[in-house]
């Protein structure tokens, strides 16, 4: 199993003729993912790498049975593209773009929740269920199938972290990028709930950072008696307060947003802490062995 995305995915790429769109048509095909339709205004009836192109998401879904969308449009048009896709009935949408106004992220999140759809992003590489399907632009060689769930606020960190996990024999059920912006579609609490319900996920690895409060969702979860074992790596231990470290949400504005406060809460909740990237595979293995012990 996996969360949200599996081998039955039929992917629609909105913005299929752009730089990211043309890259992903080929890249997803090489990652065993079926791309069944693309959207590009005014190019109805054409094809990109044998993928039919439509002008409307509704028509594309009706004709191809697409059930997952990857949306590559600039921030100025992103809200319209995401709303069209949600309202066309698409249950799973990844919007990887960054620089999205927060008000638009709020509208996207609200619309997705109301429709019962899952939105991944903004400012995220997307979602991958290794060996099954990929809805995003993360490098496939970093991933391998296995029992570990990965939730990450950072794209770059998730690539290298998963590469290290895979190299250590710790494959993944699904890896979800919840994004580096303050308001998002699927958030940490919702991702954790999905992985909790996935029978093949044995342990959860959380890759977080300074700023915001997402990490406390894991601390809350880890205290539940039925929680799956978890490990966490938070980056930004050496980041100064009051400075935005790349991501819109990676800024320490209060003590609760600092590395020390979050690590303390996670540690007290029983999450295995990796102090550095170097310690991540060990922490993940330790969480997984706890899962094995409790199953035995």
């Amino acid at each position, binding site marked *: 199993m996996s969360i949200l995305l599996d081998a039955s995915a039929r992917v629609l790429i909105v913005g299929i003729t752009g730089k990211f769109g043309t*890259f992903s048509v080929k890249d997803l095909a090489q990652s065993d993912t079926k791309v069944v339709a693309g959207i590009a205004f005014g190019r109805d009836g054409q094809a990109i790498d044998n993928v039919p192109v439509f002008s409307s998401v509704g028509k594309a879904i009706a004709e191809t049975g697409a059930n997952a969308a990857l949306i590559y449009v600039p*921030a*100025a048009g992103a809200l319209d593209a995401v709303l069209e896709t949600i309202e066309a009935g698409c249950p799973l949408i990844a919007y990887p773009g960054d*620089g999205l*106004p*927060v*008000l638009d992220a*709020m*509208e996207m*999140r*609200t619309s997705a929740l109301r429709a019962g759809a899952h939105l991944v992003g903004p400012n995220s590489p997307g979602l991958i269920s290794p060996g099954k399907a990929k809805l995003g*632009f*993360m*490098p496939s*060689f*970093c991933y391998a199938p296995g029992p570990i769930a990965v939730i*990450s*606020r*950072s*794209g*770059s*960190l*998730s*690539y*290298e972290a998963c*590469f290290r996990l895979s190299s250590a024999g710790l494959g993944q059920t699904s890896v979800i990028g919840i994004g*580096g912006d*303050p*308001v*998002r579609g699927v*958030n940490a609490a919702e991702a954790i709930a999905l992985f909790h319900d996935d029978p093949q996920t044995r342990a959860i690895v959380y*890759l977080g*950072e*300074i700023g*915001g*409060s*997402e990490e406390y*969702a894991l601390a809350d979860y880890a205290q539940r008696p039925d929680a799956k074992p978890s490990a966490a*790596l938070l*980056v*930004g*231990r*050496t*980041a*100064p307060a*009051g*400075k*935005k*470290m*790349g*991501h*819109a949400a*990676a*800024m320490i504005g*209060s*003590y*609760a947003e600092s590395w020390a406060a979050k690590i303390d809460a996670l540690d007290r909740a029983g999450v295995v802490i990796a102090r*550095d*990237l*170097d310690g991540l595979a060990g922490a993940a293995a330790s969480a997984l062995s706890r899962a094995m012990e409790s199953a035995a």
Partner: protein
Amino acid sequence: MHYAFMLLTEAHGKALLRAAAIPTPLSYELRSLDEVRACAVGFPVAVKAQVSSGGRGKAGGIRKAASAFELEDAFRSIMDMTFAGERPQSVLAESWLDIARELYLAVTIDGRAGGFSVLYSPRGGVDIEDGPPPLNYPIGLARNFRAHEFRKLLEGVERDVKLRERIISTARRLLDVASNHECLTVEINPLVVLKDGSLVAGDAKIVLDDAAAFRKSATAAAIAASREMADREIRRCADANLMLVWLDGEIGLISGGAGMTMAAMDAIDGAGSEPACFLDVSGNPTPAGFSLAFDLLDRALRVKGILISMFGGGLHTDRVAKTLIDILKTRSSTKPVVLRLNGTSSDRATEILRGAGYHNHATLEAAVADIVKRVGRAA
């Protein structure tokens, strides 16, 4: 383009509050001695530095003046000060308030609320951060605000019925400001209760959402103004789509992606040294981007050595290797450089680097250990 964050000056913020019918003290923004001398304010006044960074009160940027002479004196000395590297462009001379109480009221973005949260504390003022965390009313979209829900929360911390209702209506107006101007934070601290029980905004801290600049010309103008104010190096990086934050250490770090750049900073710390910067070149991993990065770090006196750590996902590290060799060949600085290019095409990157006499480290940790050792030797 990315700058730290778009904090408006108090004068600008209060203009937005006034336009939303939130009372502010009578005030004059003064830019020159002529304006100071012509100012017909009644004394005493608060004289406040207008800067786009926090903490000015503790840094001496707020003074009391009881006469025209004292106002001129305060103006001269404040305009001569710097706050987090920034010189005030003006001061605000503001009627001294007859304060009964100081409250804290803010609208901010909260990830766990999925949007806006309203924050309230019955004890506002300069030491707000030392007290208990404020009451949090999570709402998400502004249209989800419900006076009765907020009232229920306030009942636990605020007994005065009239005051409670004034706080509720002010909170709704703050949400209007936040929505209409696309703000990440609209904070009034202190929200002053006057002796007659009415509320006045003693300060205004408004942070605009820079991502909305494409449809908010006022935000675009504020970004352009902050670009003029920004440090020259930060501006060069922002224009080239690199993300730079200077830190206090000695290892110049060039990395890719916000998360991995922070991970590398932490690894340098773990190895007993300190990073000199957060420098993310993933937005522009080209000869121009890397050249700018080297130029900045080679010039910076504090930087004793440079670590380049890139993990190639979409990025082809063999191309990066070629770019780096071209730069290293012509570079005049003798600061040691340590390389670590992993991921896509890293075998070819290693070969290319070896051909030019450079070692490509297999892991971040090995590269960090190497640069820390070399810098230690250089010191």
